[in-house]
């Protein structure tokens, strides 16, 4: 079996996902020997249009992005959306909330028409995505797990349980006990509860689990002094595009 060819592509985002791949440190060399990375703009100059697996970072926010993503879709057999921006639109979707035109005007004033910008959408609005590596930034070990799973032909294990599970495994004191709030009970684990590990509330950057108990979560936040507006603002920080199941 030849090594699968992998392209790593960046769209509108902060580049942090690609950086997380570079941050693999001990595993980076194993990764480049397990697969053939043929496109990785953040790290290499070599470039080829021949790849089977596309790891895509970033949201689709311009006409030009749309053209590029469609081309990738026509080449790659396996699409992996990496990071909140690619998976759900992530933080970029706050622009949609604000209104594309209004946002352009606020930032670019009367020059706003010079700017190519469309409604922010996640990758799966344009392509069928095979695997999602959620989070902002994504968990680099999960990216490795997805690649490894593709090599082995198995389904990667992406948890569908709440962050609280990992938080408790890590023996943390719940941040509610520390007087803060947390979206852990409805948010999808897989990040090793890294925010609560740092005594900071979960912001649901990996989205919510399949059957979140949203009502209970709203009550809980309200009990901790949040207004309805605050609650919605928390829910949509990373999930404004795909927030239907938490409305």
């Amino acid at each position, binding site marked *: 079996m030849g090594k699968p060819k992998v392209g790593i592509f960046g769209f509108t985002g902060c580049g942090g996902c690609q950086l997380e791949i570079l941050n693999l440190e001990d595993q980076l060399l194993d990764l480049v020997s397990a697969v053939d990375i043929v496109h990785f703009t953040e790290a290499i100059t070599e470039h080829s249009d021949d790849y089977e697996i596309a790891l895509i970072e970033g949201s689709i926010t311009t006409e030009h992005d749309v053209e590029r993503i469609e081309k990738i879709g026509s080449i790659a057999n396996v699409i992996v959306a990496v990071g909140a921006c690619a998976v759900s639109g992530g933080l970029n979707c706050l622009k949609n909330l604000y209104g594309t035109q209004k946002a352009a005007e606020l930032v670019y004033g009367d020059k706003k028409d010079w700017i190519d910008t469309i409604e922010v959408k996640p990758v799966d609005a344009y392509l069928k995505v095979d695997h999602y590596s959620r989070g902002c930034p994504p968990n680099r070990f999960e990216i490795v797990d997805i690649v490894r799973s593709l090599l*082995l*032909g*198995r*389904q990667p294990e992406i948890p569908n349980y709440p962050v609280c599970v990992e938080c408790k495994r890590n023996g943390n004191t719940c941040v509610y006990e520390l007087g803060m709030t947390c979206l852990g009970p409805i948010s999808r684990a897989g990040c090793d509860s890294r925010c609560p590990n740092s005594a900071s509330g979960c912001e649901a950057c990996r989205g919510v689990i399949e059957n979140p108990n949203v009502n209970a979560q709203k009550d809980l936040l309200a009990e901790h002094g949040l207004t309805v507006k605050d609650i919605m603002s928390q829910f949509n920080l990373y999930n404004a595009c795909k927030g239907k199941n938490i409305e």
Partner: protein
Amino acid sequence: MVLEAEKKGKKKTIYTPDMATITEISDLTPTEKQFTIQIDDQETREAFRFQPGQFVELTVFGLGEAPFSIPSSPNNRESFELCVRDIGNVSNALHKMAPGSKVGIRGPYGNGYFPHEKMKGNNVVIIAGGIGMAPVRSLLKYILEDRQSYKDFSLIYGCVDPANILYKDEMQQLKQRDDIEIKMTVDNPDADWKEAVGVCTNLIGDLKYSPEDTFIVVCGPPIMYKFVILELDDRSYKPENIFLSLERRMECGVGKCNHCHIGNKLVCVDGPVFSLWEIRNLKEAI
């Protein structure tokens, strides 16, 4: 840190599989394959004795472990067979393997198996649905190999489609014998189908054996049990003579991971075969 394995050479714990080789693979249906497996180490192989209804935990290294019942006859001491449906990580990987591949085996497990000793001198009825054939085939083979010790012997076997029927050729051969009665039924018959149509519960009514000297063995999808038991109850078969093989999620097979807990029973250790009498009042069992 003391790493026991380093200190004392190889260390075997209840979680450590023995190496085994897949010696043969054959297609049974579009979704099921049969694997013949031989344990590599001779001593371990000789010590590996199982009862009909027991199962093993099979590891495909790097992909995981899953429980599978042993459908072959306990009398074959050299190797055993597994019949596997490709449904997930381990089973898909198995389906992609070639003879000669290595797997890990733990077991045999399960203290609850089909009580073939007690069945001797009685009628035996096996009711199987779909892949439920796998666990009971071991008993079927075992009884056929010692046929004279039992009275009448029937098999009721139901599948969704004719294509799903496991061990089709074997079934055809058995049909030629007059010491076993075989009845098959499918939900969706094709043009060539000449036997019964519908769920296998329909065929229970035809059984003529008296509850006094009859053992009944049931294995199939969870939904089947409820209806089969209703039928059997209606005909006053004795719960202590009815045996069911249950499926639950298992992560260890040795009573530790607890996923197969039903009340105070563990399917892996106390089962997977239970008498109806044992589980009748066990909530959630059926």
